[in-house]
């Protein structure tokens, strides 16, 4: 099975108080020099069958209608390389 990753981020103009709270905590923890933090969501979709153009188009539709609210969020779709057996082994080991 192949893995497709959908990243969802608030649009740049939308206030992200969660990201700001993380950013404000960084100096307290001794991490200086981080000017801004924005928090997003990552979805990992394990796809049955080949990840061809049709499958990618379907995942794009899933992302656009459901995973992201495009009124406030942008999204990107990436295919992760790696064979099913390796991915499964990696999971078992983690």
């Amino acid at each position, binding site marked *: 099975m192949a893995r497709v990753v959908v990243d969802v981020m*608030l649009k740049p103009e939308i206030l992200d108080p969660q990201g700001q709270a993380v950013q404000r905590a960084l100096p307290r923890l001794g991490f200086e020099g981080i000017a801004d933090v924005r928090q997003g969501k990552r979805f990992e979709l394990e796809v049955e069958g080949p990840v061809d153009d049709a499958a990618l188009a379907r995942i794009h539709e899933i992302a656009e209608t459901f995973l992201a609210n495009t009124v406030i969020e942008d999204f990107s779709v990436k295919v992760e390389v790696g064979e099913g057996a390796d991915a499964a082994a990696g999971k078992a080991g983690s």
Partner: protein
Amino acid sequence: MTARVGVVTFPGTLDDRDTQRAVRTAGLEAVPLWHRDKDLKQVDAVILPGGFSYGDYLRAGAISRFSPVMESVIDQAKAGMPVLGICNGFQVLTETHLLPGAMLRNNHLHFICRDQKLRVENAETAWTRSYEQGQEINIPLKNIDGRYVADERVLDELEAEGRVVFRYRELNPNGSLRDIAGISNAAGNVVGLMPHPEHAVEPLIGTGRTDGLGFFTSILKRLVSA
């Protein structure tokens, strides 16, 4: 014949019973609707009550939007049936795009629970006819995802068309743009707001006032005059 108002229960809905009670207090018949029902049981209006439908997983209101009952609610709302979304119901209405914009985490990140003053900016929608234009009401508010956002063009359009139905007074509890507490669609039959009128229909509970009752009597006015 009494007007029938459907009240939808999703998994995670909390305020369906209070809403049914408010409907009855206003002299209407409350009809419970289940999220898996496609059949709206010939109701004259629908209320999507508050709570955390589907646990607010993914985004508040995002999963409920695809439930069978919402297919019928969306169709009927487009055909002119009055629909009110309270709190989580408002979030569901933005996710369905029956109302523009979106709801986000409060700007201070805290869950908030307080009595909230509102100004009724539009007393001509299906759900606000019992109020006066500019009237101030005080009803409970409780949420964590209550920050209303939309782009400038949409906000200007809402203002120009009188579709900002309620604005927060004295304090903006969540960072909503332009102090918006509630909006309507262009036809005025679909209204959503974050505060909870159903918790202020009897003097014994909530704010000790009955400022929320007007929502439910408004719908009676509309249905009788229709």
